[in-house]
């Protein structure tokens, strides 16, 4: 692909992104019921989280199944700072991101020399350790969790108990921001390094790519953004406990949209989340109430079907068509 065609394609991506952003921003005009809005908010949140996961898991190829730790750290940091020290959630959110980033660097320092399954299991194990520690940490609410005191609906406290619409706009910005960062990365030094590290670390190293530092940078950025999502979630649900923000399922739910949509692609996480999250919520609502597990069966079959039918993710549909057209 020539440089011009490449630049044109990137500009087109940005334009498409902008159009989708405007369209999604207009959605609440037609949607007023709380249930649908709730699904929209969760979908956008997972789009953003999966986009963040994709930076480390997709572009850099380090399959982390422990991102629940960063999500939980974000949720806990902002909530604890708010309830114990009265710090506004906005600062707590940033603090959570920084703490998660630092933890990710520490974990990376120890784990990035591991390959394949040894790395995957290490990420799970570290996140589970975090979960157990929070379970037993009395000051942080232990297993009982922490309830966020309801003060008043305002952007200052980032708290909206009655009308959930502001959460929608925040999480839309969050998803858009993670998308934009990924877009920017695609054509940056780091972006090329990460893909080189993913494809062949030895070859990358021999060409002067600092493999270890690349992984560290991807981990820190990915963790920072994930924690922002976690802090948002804590404000949104106004109650957190270790089970609700740090369990293994969260790690999977962050990886899943990217995998289904197309791992290591710009649009994969967005597409994956747009399909997966509404489906999850709908099956849960319409089939989960019976407690008979039918929602799980449908959901599991769906994951299996997509994994088997489209190994390169749903984005593969688009690239293939384009290639055959060219």
């Amino acid at each position, binding site marked *: 692909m020539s440089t011009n065609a490449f630049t044109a394609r990137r500009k087109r991506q940005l334009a498409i992104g902008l159009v989708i952003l405007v369209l999604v921003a207009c959605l609440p005009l037609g949607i007023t019921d709380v249930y649908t809005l709730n699904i929209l908010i969760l979908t956008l949140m997972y789009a953003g989280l999966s986009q963040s996961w994709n930076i480390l898991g997709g572009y850099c190829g380090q*399959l982390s199944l422990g991102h629940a730790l960063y999500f939980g750290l974000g949720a806990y940091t902002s909530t604890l700072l708010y309830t114990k020290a009265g710090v506004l959630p906005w600062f707590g959110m940033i603090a959570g991101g920084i703490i998660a980033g630092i933890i990710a660097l520490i974990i990376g320092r*120890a*784990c990035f*020399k*591991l*390959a*394949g*399954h*040894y790395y995957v*299991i*290490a990420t*799970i*194990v*570290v996140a*589970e*350790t975090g979960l*157990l*520690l929070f*379970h*037993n940490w009395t000051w942080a609410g232990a297993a009982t969790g922490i309830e966020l005191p309801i003060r008043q609906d305002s952007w200052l406290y980032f708290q909206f108990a009655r009308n959930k619409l502001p959460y929608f706009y925040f999480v839309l910005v969050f998803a858009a921001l993670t998308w934009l960062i990924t877009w920017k990365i695609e054509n940056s030094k780091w972006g090329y390094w990460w893909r080189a590290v993913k494809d062949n670390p030895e070859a990358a190293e021999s060409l002067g790519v600092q493999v270890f530092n690349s992984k560290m940078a991807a981990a820190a950025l990915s963790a920072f953004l994930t924690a922002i999502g976690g802090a948002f979630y804590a404000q949104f649900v106004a109650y957190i406990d270790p089970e609700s923000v740090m369990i*293994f399922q969260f790690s*999977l739910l962050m990886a*899943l949209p990217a*995998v*289904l949509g197309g*791992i290591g692609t710009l649009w994969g996480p967005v597409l994956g989340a747009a399909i997966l999250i509404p489906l999850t919520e709908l099956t849960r609502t319409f089939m989960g109430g019976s*407690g*008979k*597990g*039918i*929602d*799980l*069966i*449908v*959901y*599991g*079959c*769906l*994951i*299996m*079907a*997509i*994994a*088997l039918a489209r*190994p*390169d*993710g749903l984005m*593969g549909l688009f690239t293939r068509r384009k290639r055959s057209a060219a």
Partner: protein
Amino acid sequence: MTAAIIIQSLASGLLMGLLYGLIAVGLALIFGLMDVTNFAHGEFLMFAMYVTFFCFTFFALDPLLSAPITAAVLFAFGAMVYMLIVRFAMRAKTNVGMVQIFATFGLAIVMRGLAQLLFTPDYRSIPTTWLGGKTVEIAGIYLPAPQLAGGAVSILAFGLLWVLIKRTDFGKALEATREDAGAVALVGIDRNKVFALGWGLGSALVGLAGAIMASFFYIYPDVGASFALIAYVTVALGGFGSVFGAFAGGIVVGLVEATTAMILPPSLKAVGIYAVYLLVVFFRPRGLFGSI
């Protein structure tokens, strides 16, 4: 804490560790054979526990008697899962690792859902077994008979597995296929058949573990989840693909768990296992006995 209590805990830990090894070895076998990690391994265990439970409820078979039946059912189930799902997951040309993870993970969710639907989310247990409630005294250490039998079965199973892998034609085919799955076709070994048998064998082993555990653990649809992570850690600790690494890994995990439970509050006992895993792979990135 007296020496007697410490020895007592370590002995229980050792027995539990033998079971962990038995749970994990199927995973290690399958991984070693074809580089596939079965993320539904915990659900296979859950299924085996239910098979044992229903053998007891409907046919009044003691878990010790029904263990071979459970193993056989799981053998068939594992081979079927390979033929119907994993075989296709392996055809993926891109993202092979992720496709396998999510295909088997999807299976895990389906199995949990099916268990809820068919067996209800209730906690079940097998109230009376031949060995239940009995203890055996060895040199002042009291060991519960079911766990002791479990340890014995585990050692026996590992012994048989060793014979099978080292001494039989099937074992040679298994070794050859894991070395080079493409080349074995040239000498007339059907790769798919070996893989299916490998899945069957690996599943039969976890079936055996499930049969033993059904006699002293509650049985419910999510029971696999807590043991699955320990199984992955056990396999990785021993070194992926190493069948006897899983045996050693299981014993290490059991002993570490027992030791942690003596030092930290019981709810944190898994932390010790996780810490040891991280420590081991920090110094030996391929686990204790991994070579690949």
